[in-house]
């Protein structure tokens, strides 16, 4: 039974990773850039929930507010920091993204201070199934993650905008020639990614009520790792990678002997997978045109 509980914990943590990883992977697929500040948008979402929940006491309102704030923030960042660099070397974009990440963290620290805040979104208790007892929030997280992924997959497959996104990620130049407004698609991608980040922030707080300015840093890196493991640019890959990483993390923390090495284990998995399969599990090979 222990194992089942661990597995469920892993799945729900993995679900959160997957949701963050989706943001990474979509932005990467379409804007061809690694949005390092993505993790910090989770943090911003967390603080928005903290503020709105404090003012109104309504978790739904807080969630909606967090999604709006994150979407606006994500799109603004894209316009101000990344758009001028479109066409510049990826290294430059990556460094700018790191700068944005630092900027968000220090702004949050100036506004909210560095002390940990406790945010209790909603107290939902636990349910007991047989001998396994699971908190309701874990199940909600798991359910929402699955729902989001299904919706996202359908969106990409069956809407005009979704197909345009696929087109842009395949070949930006050709998509542009086909009359797709690439800038608009990139903006939409950032908006979706940021909304997912806000949701991830919500689930994080539901899982664990501690809120600090570095909330998004480690989950961000882990989720990026997950995206790379799954094959960056691939939506199902992000889900696979996120869940794999979440489960591995929980199992590793469960085994006392290796628990202190959990981070090392997760990162080693990344390195090994990249060595065996340089594009991750579901990543596409890109042939260079010579």
């Amino acid at each position: 039974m222990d194992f089942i509980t661990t597995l469920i914990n892993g799945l729900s943590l993995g679900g959160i990773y997957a949701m963050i990883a989706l943001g990474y992977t979509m932005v990467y697929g379409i804007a061809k850039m690694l949005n390092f500040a993505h993790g910090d948008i989770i943090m911003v979402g967390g603080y928005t929930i903290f503020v709105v929940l404090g003012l109104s006491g309504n978790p739904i309102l807080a969630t909606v507010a967090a999604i709006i704030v994150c979407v606006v923030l994500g799109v603004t960042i894209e316009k101000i920091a990344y758009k001028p660099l479109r066409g510049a070397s990826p290294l430059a974009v990556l460094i700018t993204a790191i700068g944005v990440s630092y900027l968000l963290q220090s702004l949050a620290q100036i506004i909210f201070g560095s002390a940990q805040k406790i945010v209790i979104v909603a107290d939902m208790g636990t349910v007991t199934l047989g001998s396994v007892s699971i908190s309701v929030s874990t199940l909600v997280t798991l359910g929402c993650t699955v729902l989001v992924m299904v919706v996202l997959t359908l969106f990409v497959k069956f809407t005009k905008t979704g197909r345009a996104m696929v087109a842009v990620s395949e070949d930006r130049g050709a998509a542009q020639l086909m009359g797709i407004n690439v800038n608009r698609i990139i903006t939409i991608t950032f908006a979706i990614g940021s909304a997912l980040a806000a949701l991830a922030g919500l689930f994080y707080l539901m899982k664990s009520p501690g809120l600090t300015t570095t909330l998004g840093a480690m989950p961000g890196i882990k989720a990026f790792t997950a995206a790379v493991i799954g094959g960056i640019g691939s939506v199902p890959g992000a889900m696979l990678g996120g869940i794999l990483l979440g489960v591995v993390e929980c199992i590793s923390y469960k085994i006392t002997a290796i628990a202190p090495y959990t981070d090392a284990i997760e990162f080693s998995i990344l390195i090994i997978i990249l060595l065996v399969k340089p594009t991750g599990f579901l990543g596409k090979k890109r042939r260079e045109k010579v």
Partner: protein
Amino acid sequence: MIRGKNIKWKDFINYAVIAVVTIIFGSLSVTGNLASSTQFLLEKMSIAILMAISLSLVVGFLGELSLGHAGFMCVGAYLGGKVAAVLAQSMGNSIVTLILSVLVGGAVAAVCGVVIGLPALRLKGDYLAIVTLAFGEIVKSIFQNTSFESFGGTLGLSTPRYDKKVLFIIGFVLVIICLAVIQNLIRSKHGRAITAIRDNEIAAKAMGINVTKYKLLAFTVSACFAGIGGVLYSWSNYTVQSSNFGYNYSIEILVMVVLGGMGNINGGILAATLITYLNTTLATVLTGDLAVLQNLVYALILIVIVIYNNSPALKSFRERYNLKALLHKIKLVKHDPMRVKDDEAVWDRVPTKIAMDEILSVDTKVRTSVAEKGDPYESEGED
């Protein structure tokens, strides 16, 4: 006179400046006229400069992003520190102990450079960045979980501290050595090969450049000096705590390199000096929540500089209003935007037209060659 008129005093001004600074402060220090706060500051500067120069080789010249530079430093600090701690028991804090620890720390870090350089052969850009980041975190985690007897565990490794009157002098001597090695490497056929890889890897391969070998070389040399920086760190601190070598420190070094200008070693040195100075003085001036402003300012500087230097839209603006053009205007230097110095590679016009896919794509070809031919490093040894 091989290069004849090509010898420019400019090429050596960085050695001269560092040497003069070291001599001035060194003589003040050894005669007991230098406050220890200044000595500490200089030690930190020499470490930061070492780190910045060594990272510059990989990021600025090879064009690969390493987010795990602090990991190499960590390896050097622990291994060099351990050697120092063991030797100091029998030999004391002598210069011999220091040199031996520097050699060991540098060598072990170089080995790690090879280890992390191997994935570099197959991964590019963002993938490589994440692997180096992972490497840094793994190193941190491993040293944190060592036993107290071996590497101090969570408390950190206790290391001897070198006489603070002299340590920064040694630090700057190491900086000069590092500068000489890396600058010499860059200004040679091997440096050309490295910059060629950055400029256009496909063309470099077609020119017979052994990409594997040069990536590995750059990673190894860079890691070696980062390790030496780590050993220096261990000598300038009583404890080596792996938590200080995290991702944030790697980013700080990266900021120095970027601020100094990609591929501009002197710029990197200046930026390292400036940031270290600001870090230490701002910390005493800004207290309370103002201290966070420091990070805010870094972040802004980073964003503004990178956008200014790289934005395709600002290209013409950049060409009109840059430092060289300005100096030309006031007749300080001859400036012709079309011409570059003989052995200069220009990085402030980093490629803007290369197709993104090309840079971002993971090199699948090397993989097939590995699969087909076994070990690629043996069959293609140059020479």
